[in-house]
């Protein structure tokens, strides 16, 4: 049971200091979660901390590939507008995994 940071991560550092298990580490090209350490925050917090603060929609997914913050859920930007901004990669990711 562990969460995954994918290639949409913008390396903003927000999640790293919050992890109760020090499972998150800086890596190239983007931050990663050590699956052996991640507990999805069970026992420490009501919600996984990395997914609670991450500002990038779809950058964090669970082990089934389901994104924790789907498109539009954080910014409120309508899906058509995201498409217009060439954010298709984000939408594809959300569609493929859900």
């Amino acid at each position, binding site marked *: 049971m562990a969460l995954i940071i994918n290639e949409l991560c913008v390396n903003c550092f927000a999640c790293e200091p919050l992890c109760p298990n020090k499972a998150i580490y800086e890596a190239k090209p983007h931050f990663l979660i050590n699956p052996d350490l991640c507990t999805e925050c069970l026992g420490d917090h009501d919600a996984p901390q990395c997914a609670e603060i991450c500002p990038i929609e779809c950058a964090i997914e669970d082990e089934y590939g389901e994104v924790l913050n789907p498109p539009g859920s954080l910014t*409120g930007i309508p899906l058509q507008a*995201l498409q217009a*901004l060439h954010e298709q990669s984000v939408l594809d990711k959300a569609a493929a995994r859900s």
Partner: protein
Amino acid sequence: MNVLPDHIMKKVQDHPCYSEDAHHYFARMHVAVAPACNIQCNYCNRKYDCANESRPGVVSELLTPVQAVKKTLAVAANIPQMSVLGVAGPGDPLANPERTFDTFRMLSEQAPDIKLCVSTNGLSLPDCVDELAKHNIDHVTITINCVDPEVGEKIYPWIFWQNRRIKGREAAEILIERQQKGLEMLIERGILVKVNSVMIPGVNDQHLAEVSRVVKSKGAFLHNVMPLISEPEHGTFYGLTGQRGPTQDELNDLQDACSGDMNMMRHCRQCRADAVGLLGEDRGDEFTLDKIENMEIDYAAAMVVRAELRADVIAELESKRAAKAAKQNVVSLVSLSSAPALRPVKMAVATSGGGVINQHFGHAKEFLVYEASAQGVRFLSHRKADQYCAGDTSCGDGESVLGMTIKALEGCEVVLCSKIGFEPWGMLETAGIQPNGEHAMEPIEDAIAAVYAEMQAAGKLLVQPAHQLKSA
């Protein structure tokens, strides 16, 4: 600035970002050490730097605290005018307390002659005030866009607070409460506080006069209203949902409405957060990471040079201020005797500094806007000629740049410059702006007063504009 209390005036008069005089002499720089943020604003997309705090689409070079200190020392040793270091992002400095305070701690030790400033959204501010008070903090800037959660929920989709992402009205309530508490705590400890607001038409434009009143009553020394930047290509909620930014006139009107209330920072340039140098210039290329890596810095020697330069500049500024004060008395005497029923006129000036009209129209990257009226001449604001043109390929041709410049001069009736080309002259006239190159090298205030007098003599200053009289 004349209504600021003396002790605050002392603190800001040599500050490159606040003092109209000082920014030609002193410089500031920013370092990007704080990537994380703890809130989301509708004018920001975290895939880029914050569009409203820095130049959109330009991603700052993220530095570790050690690199940031090295860079600061390198710049301060080579540009002795560099007096203020800001930590302003790309995220929120106080959402990255270790990185921000590591930087401050090292600089307090190694370069005690550099003042520090920090910008924040305020959410973590109350927790950081005591640590801030330990350093050589020049001032803290809080971005406060509202004091009413009903307005706030239209600006902030979420905050991260006590281990949870909180959305909606509750998020705005918490953020506002924390901002106000942080403001009060800083004032209690005698730390200068500046407030920034982003003006969002239809969202908080009507509300910002109230914000201005509240933050002033609590002791903020400046309230700086900045226009929303919301180009769709920046990928922000506002950009993608068609929320427009204010026109220059709307911005001026709001600044006028608030200026009765408190000191507004009229000459703010939404400078790039990682710019290096005097305001309006950027020497950042000289201080990239690989270049500073090999620099030998003798900071003790640099400190001596810096102290000498500072003393010289302050002496020069003081003598200029004295001369100006003497002149203002004369101007006000003259204006008292003139007829009061004249309408005010806005005029733009192209200058590269020194208080005189000395720049070619085509070379001006920004214009100073003054208002001439029966009461005299007063400075209103800076307008960027390239505000919407960040050098991307879409606006390379001269005609569209000129079009943007003319748009930036909206509301001005005259533009004073040292020289101007034939083609822009015609375009300006068509747009109802009279170019004027007759006052090259003259002091700005004198030239504007002279043009205003000419307009009066020509009967152009009747209370109603001429075209309305004709149609009546």
